[in-house]
């Protein structure tokens, strides 16, 4: 698409539209989380925080803060495997992703046809 065409007709999502720019929330296993804070510290999007009483802290997604990139760095570092991203972010229009499927761990066998 040429620059002029993009300027006039480029379908760019509004950044503050939660429908057009969908950032996902991570899944948290509250029984497994021991509140060690590692994931909070390393999350590139800064979307995590600890809450609760001292000694019983747990992790949660900050209210109203968007921007999780589903990188799963939180899962990689968690000693208790208590947190993980299971869906990729989804943008509309120009930034809509194509050719991406469901989340899978690394697989050592041939995948089947979709």
């Amino acid at each position, binding site marked *: 698409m040429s620059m002029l065409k993009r300027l006039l007709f480029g379908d*760019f999502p509004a*950044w*503050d539209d939660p429908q057009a720019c969908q950032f996902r929330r991570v899944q948290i296993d509250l029984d497994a989380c021991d509140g060690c804070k590692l994931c909070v510290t390393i999350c590139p*999007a800064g979307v995590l925080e600890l809450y609760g009483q001292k000694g019983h802290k747990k992790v949660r997604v900050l209210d109203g803060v968007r921007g999780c990139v589903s990188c799963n760095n939180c899962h*990689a570092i968690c000693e208790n495997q208590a947190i993980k991203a299971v869906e990729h972010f989804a943008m509309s229009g120009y930034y809509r992703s194509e050719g991406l*499927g469901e*989340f899978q761990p690394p697989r050592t066998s041939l995948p089947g*046809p979709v």
Partner: protein
Amino acid sequence: MSKTISEARIIEDPEELDEEELEGEADPESAPVETPEGADWNTVERAFLTRRSIRKFKRKQVPAHLIHRMLEVARFAPSQGNCQPYKFAVIRDPKLLVEMEEYCVDQCKQLTAAVNYTTYKKGSFGYYKARVMARLFNAIDPNMLHPVPVTAMTSIAHGKFMVFHRAPTVILILMDKHGIGVPEVDIGIVGTNIVMAAESHRLGTCWIGFSKLLNKSKEWRERLGITDRFEVSEAIAVGYPVGKPWQNLIERPTHEIAWFEDGEKQILG
């Protein structure tokens, strides 16, 4: 044409190879590694699978000889036409790193103020002005204004995210703009060599695309000795990671694979 040159030009025809060589069974030393389907990941694969971008580092500096080893591995990366369109700047001076961070944060503040309309009150003059600017920037270079980097840039402007993540060492990859073909691809490859060499020492790395902001400053170009032919293409932050970011294999989306075999096409995912 001299004899030596014409001789050097003879390209061996595969037909002239031993039939045994082509079958690949002759020499046990060159036999392929047998990996049955379902076998566990080997060391090299595992290194790629457990590499994560590290953004929280211990204060300890990385020994200079390890950085040098990484840059030696870089020298042997593939590049288009073997043109190797890059050179490096290694920044380990804490004062310089702080100043680089400050400059890039300031750039993020200016850019956020210019284009991120979500930081203005809806309906205000600033809101509409930034929306028009965003549209213009989007048309010129849409990939830069994807919502993810815009969110990151805004977080940096608000002091909630960092550019170089306080890494003790930052390697700037300077791209020769006169390289063959698409030099940006060669930058990606040479950087991967650096990152994976670091990984083998249990060092943590993070690619820093925001390092490009340095190009805009005449002062920084001069301080870093960057001539017109070169530009900061990417940077790689290096240090000792906090925690054990390699301990769990993670999940990521699958990617469509079109598979052509036996006269058929299948889509795998």
